[in-house]
């Protein structure tokens, strides 16, 4: 059995050679680690890599290639995001070739100036139960044994969210990296008068994060794109997880697991008990 990486390259090459897709979105090696790459030539398929550093969800790039047939490499959470996007009519299933790779968790990024304490599995991966994309055209099994997951941490210890929000720069990396933030104009900026000012007033960070959380509720697939791109390491996934829990308790809805199950806010029926 070949390694997932070779299988991935072979698959991407054959897809491109057969012209089944115009483009494969995957990960390539970069100096600082791993970064997204866009492969349109069969020869370039050798650049593709697969390792636990492939953390940024590639799904957000799909909206840039709406007219093209795209092959995309997805982890379990990314696949859930695709499911959810299809439900929201943001994605054409037929023009997307989903290469699902079994994911055993990704590493937390080692960012500038952090003390290097060895690689740690990301917090959101500890809780993850969907390791293979629920929607796929091809499955690549992983031979790597699952990354060591410390026993899922007790969520009981509450975070001081207000002081975490205070660190925020509102650089919008969380918004821009999110698979679900596909609005051409973010509602944070789009209101007239705007919900928050153009320049960052610290007190408005509360509104910003709460509004974003409300927009993510019941949609967030906890892929951790926001959290891993955040320069000040706000554990946003934990916040959105809390709201997803609400949806699960009230409606039994888990985003991105079942293509048939419509999101509860879209099918709110008369007389239904909230």
């Amino acid at each position: 059995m070949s390694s997932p990486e070779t299988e991935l390259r072979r698959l991407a090459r054959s897809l491109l050679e057969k012209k089944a897709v115009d483009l494969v979105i995957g990960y390539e090696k970069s100096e600082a680690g791993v970064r997204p790459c866009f492969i349109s030539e069969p020869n370039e398929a050798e650049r593709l890599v697969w390792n636990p550093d492939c953390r940024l969800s590639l799904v957000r790039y799909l909206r840039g290639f709406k007219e093209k047939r795209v092959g995309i490499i997805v982890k379990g959470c990314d696949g859930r995001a695709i499911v959810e996007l299809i439900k929201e009519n943001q994605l054409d299933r037929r023009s997307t070739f989903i290469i699902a790779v079994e994911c055993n968790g990704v590493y937390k990024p080692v960012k500038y100036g952090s003390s290097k304490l060895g690689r740690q599995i990301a917090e959101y991966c500890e809780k993850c139960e969907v390791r293979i994309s629920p929607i796929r055209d091809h499955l690549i099994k992983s031979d790597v044994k699952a990354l060591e997951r410390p026993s899922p941490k007790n969520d009981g210890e509450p975070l001081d969210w207000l002081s975490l929000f205070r660190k925020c720069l509102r650089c919008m990396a969380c918004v821009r990296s999110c698979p679900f933030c596909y609005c051409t104009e973010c509602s944070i900026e789009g209101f007239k008068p705007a919900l928050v000012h153009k320049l960052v007033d610290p007190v408005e960070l509360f509104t910003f994060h709460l509004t974003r959380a409300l927009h993510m509720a019941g949609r967030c697939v906890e892929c951790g794109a926001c959290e891993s791109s955040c320069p000040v390491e706000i554990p946003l996934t934990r916040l959105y997880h809390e709201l997803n829990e609400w949806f699960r308790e009230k409606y039994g809805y888990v985003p991105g697991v079942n293509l048939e199950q419509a999101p509860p806010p879209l099918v709110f029926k008369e007389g239904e008990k909230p």
Partner: protein
Amino acid sequence: MKMFSIREENLKVFLRELSLKHVLIAPFKRDGYFEFDVLRNPDDFNVNYTNTRLSPKRFFMPQRQLVFKHYPRKGFTEELKENSSVVLFGIRPCDASALSVLDNVLLNPPHKDALYENRRKNAIVVSLSCTKPMTECFCNVFETGPIRGTGEDLTFTHTSKGFVVEARTQKGIAVIGEFGELFREADGEMLNEYNKLIREVLDEMGSRLKVDKTRLIGIEKEAGEEFFQLNAQRCIECSLCSFACPLCYCFETEDYWEKDSYVRFRGWDTCISPLFTKMASGLDPRVTKADRLCHRFCHKLSRIPLTFNAYGCVGCGRCVSLCPAGIDIREVLRKWG
């Protein structure tokens, strides 16, 4: 300039004395990474840090800053405050050099940026040399480190026998004079170690990336579009690179009515944003993401040098490490440097 030395155990004493006379700002660890803040207890200071996650630019150009207030029928008030003297201790040479570049840009006559100058003139910048540069760093390219930068008043370098202190400006000499009993003239042995250290660290960094910075000028002509288009596909258009950069100085202004007066604020802006050059008429000289990315790199490496006679990058490596999409300015350097 003159070389002094201070014993390791005296550093804490020095910091304590400094914090009595000035507002002392130094990096210390919070939530897993280092950040500059007011150091109340000098014991919190630890020499063993690489660099702060975010740049110290915010002490001179805050993310949001009041430009003026205008009271109807009364006129303007402006909050040009009499700043108390601030000491920025433990800033890395690259970030200190960034301040000297900001000086070049913002204090360029005839119109000096008073808001910046007001904060800058009351600040004493004390840098601490990098003896173990990070893998992302490339300050050797722009000669802004790792041991000596260009914008600091005092340079501290950690050697085995204490700190070698170089006074770089009159301000720095004044500080040494103020705490004269703590400092001695550096002896020959120490200076030897210091010089050796400079060579070693530079060699190590040079082995990673060696670029002739003068060749970067005018890169936009040869750079072509392919490279930037490739990276533009990747770019997610957040403003992280500009916000984290120690010398991205572009600012945006915003006017509104607040309580009893019209106010104007100014704050960080980013050239990656599609709105950066878009005019009200809808005309935009930089329409595509590739254009904007090209501008970001060319502005730093070629356009600022041509206009202000200093490079717009100091090689701190923040944008390299923090970019979620892995866009790397070092590629530009390798390719055309």
